């Protein structure tokens, strides 16, 4: 994601989550999202076969 794409995404996702992000907070949230995005990128790039299920714990 480019810087502008991240900014646009953060604005849209905050709206979708009902979060009103004040102007002075927005830059800091964008900086944090940029960090998360950078850390997540290699995870998102891992090709996985369909039989690898999420590692959730759920016992009905």
């Amino acid at each position, binding site marked *: 994601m480019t810087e502008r794409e991240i900014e646009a995404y953060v604005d849209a996702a905050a709206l979708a989550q009902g979060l009103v992000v004040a102007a002075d907070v927005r830059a800091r949230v964008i900086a*944090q999202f940029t960090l998360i995005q950078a850390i997540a990128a290699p995870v998102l790039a891992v090709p996985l076969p369909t039989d690898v299920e999420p590692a959730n714990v759920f016992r009905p």
Partner: protein
Amino acid sequence: MTEVAAPASAAAIAAAIREGRTTARAVADATLAAIARVDPALNSFVTLTPERTRAEADAVDARRAAGAMLPPLAGVPYAVKNLFDVEGVVTLAGSKVNASLPPAAADATLVSRMHAAGGVLVGTLAMDEYAYGFTTENSHHGPTRNPHDTTRTAGGSSGGCGAAVAARLVPLALGSDTNGSIRVPSSLCGIWGLKPTFGRLPRTGSYPFVASLDHLGPFATTLDDLALAYDALQGPDAADPACAQRAVEPVGTLRHEDLDGIRIARLGGYFDEPLTNAARAAVDAACTALHTTRTVTLPSAALGRAAAFVVTGSEGGALHLADLRTRYADFEPLSRDRLVAGALMPAAWYVQAQRVRERWRHEVAALFRDVDVVIAAATPCPATPLGDEWLDLPTGRVPLRPTMGLLTQPLSCVGLPVIAAPVATPGALPIAVQVVAAPWREDLCFRVAAALAARGVAASPLPPIHA
């Protein structure tokens, strides 16, 4: 009546009470007095529970007077990170937001188990807000200070546990570890810490952070005390859906066996590259003492850590989303923007991270077919100055607060049992090594840690206030 000379271990206190050399009440009063004297310089306690402390101590003394057999921790003072429910106390979890909650109606399961084992609760301990941090620089409560150098962090998020135990204010504490929050303060404060296998100890009655990754565990100044506490805490609890329904597997009798047949290796690659000289020296000392010459690598360790980071941000952000919408200003300034950003992550990122975590689990399981225990540093460096924003490592400059758990996070991501074993060099700040085994093999962690202690490498150093 003779008092136990401070600082004493939990085992020594319990023995002195059992043998009538002191009383639980005398120990409790001395503990409360020491906290009043020393803690203003550390800021490790949030709430003291003196009425309960004295009542539990008096009950122990009454049982002894009646000739009853005393349980293993009878009269031993302990404290808990303030995310454990304590009946009658508000479970703040380091936050301002939770201050409006009613007091807990009952004790957390592990607090009940400590009570059953004879433990005497002294109070609750400081932490990063909602356990999201590695430095316990809590803006509401003020920073918790490291007893070895009060200008430095005690680590986090269980920093109050680290500081209070290292300062010998209590011999035992209970904390939580989602990404390293037991092992990081153990390392920076120079004490023993155990993060058991994910699902070993029930989390019932503790304030959650990341349900997929939250673990609870004990801190102590000796390995014997760590084992005593761990054995008292074990057992299934159906009320925690992640808690494995396994019987108690005590380690109390296993600690002095030799290491014959245990295959031990050093973790290289990802776990070696960011180490400062102090951290590498600690790992060297541990491996030399264990006659370990083999180094193994886990190629996906960085991915495992990144997956834990994504899962943490997403689950943590979602947990607090409702309050972030309405009470943003009441959240910790050091972590609230990270929480908001986490809540904005697309669902597909979270699911992918949980799938990568599953694959990482397979890679780790394959390694443990070939070795039994691996050794790595717990933190890349010793305690850093309070207020520092950046960490300069051989691998580059990184933001300090989210990354002090670089070496712990990949391991908790897949729930491995780990003992943080403190390695002290005279005149230097302490640092710990992680003794890591396959899931459910805490016994191996204890055996190898016992060898490190017996061979003079691992011990909890006394901070200057006791020197």
